[in-house]
């Protein structure tokens, strides 16, 4: 890929970003390619060293905050005329709830993900408590010389303890998974604002 192709593709992938961000990123990569060429690489090698366009775009996106992207999306491209402003204000009952709903949906996704984690921890806690109650039951029944019940309690305690140990690892994994999923979701939402070619 030539330098021009790479930068062109990167520019397209970043369309929708605030102009300063796009220019900043493009300048960085353009300079980096030039530096490598100056150091002895061919243009092809230098561009290849930059990695994929998607990766470069994703790294840039991770630096720009979601609110900034939203602001850029709704920024008016030219001065609004009087009637447009009036329409915007009058139309508030229409677009405001929709925008609020979209924001709430994004939050809801995070809420659902983390409530799954909380639920898993609650279940884990209940198994731990069951294991403990099994131990107490064993002692209680053993003291009363109720052997079958004591054995049952002991068996139960072991089973619940076993499940709790397994559950502990599951809970840890769920937290990691939640953090990872949250990041991917955030990147995905950001991507909705970026990368669509504006009609010339």
């Amino acid at each position, binding site marked *: 890929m030539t330098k021009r192709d790479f930068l062109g593709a990167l520019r397209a992938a970043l369309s929708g970003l605030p102009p300063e961000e796009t220019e900043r990123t493009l300048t960085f990569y353009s300079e980096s390619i030039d*530096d490598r060429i100056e150091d002895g690489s061919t243009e092809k090698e230098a561009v290849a060293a930059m*990695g994929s366009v998607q990766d470069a775009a*994703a790294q840039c996106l991770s630096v720009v905050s979601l609110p900034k992207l939203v602001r850029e999306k709704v920024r008016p491209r030219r001065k609004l005329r009087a009637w447009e402003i009036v329409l915007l204000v009058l139309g508030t009952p229409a677009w405001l709830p929709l925008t609020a709903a979209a924001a709430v949906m994004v939050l809801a996704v995070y809420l659902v993900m983390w409530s799954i984690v909380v639920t898993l921890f609650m279940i884990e806690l209940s198994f731990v408590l069951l294991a403990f109650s099994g131990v107490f039951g064993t002692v209680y029944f053993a003291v009363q010389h109720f052997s079958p019940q004591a054995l049952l309690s002991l068996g139960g305690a072991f089973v619940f303890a076993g499940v709790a140990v397994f559950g502990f690892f599951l809970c840890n994994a769920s937290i990691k998974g939640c953090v990872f999923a949250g990041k991917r979701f955030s990147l995905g939402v950001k991507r909705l604002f970026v990368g669509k070619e504006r009609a010339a």
Partner: protein
Amino acid sequence: MDVQLKRGLLEAAVLSAVGRGETYGYQIIKDLQPYIVIAEPTLYPILRRLEADDLLTVRAAEHNGRLRKYYAVTPKGEQRLQTFRTEWAQMQKIGEFILQEVSHD
């Protein structure tokens, strides 16, 4: 290796490279190369974050008929490096312990 730990280390490494004297992107990559190989997509967000945290400054200067961005460390950045150096001794000890476990297996 834990992603967060690696990212923190990389940021400190980049800051350290800048701390040795005003430098530019590709030079940082070359300086780090014997120790860790990173490419521009990894470097870019690190430099941006360091700048946003006020740990380094950027200026554009002419070089061979084109503009090049040069990065320099700020006093706050120097402080951060100092903190890292003092914390590193502790980190090394922990690392020693971890490595001990492995060799006894």
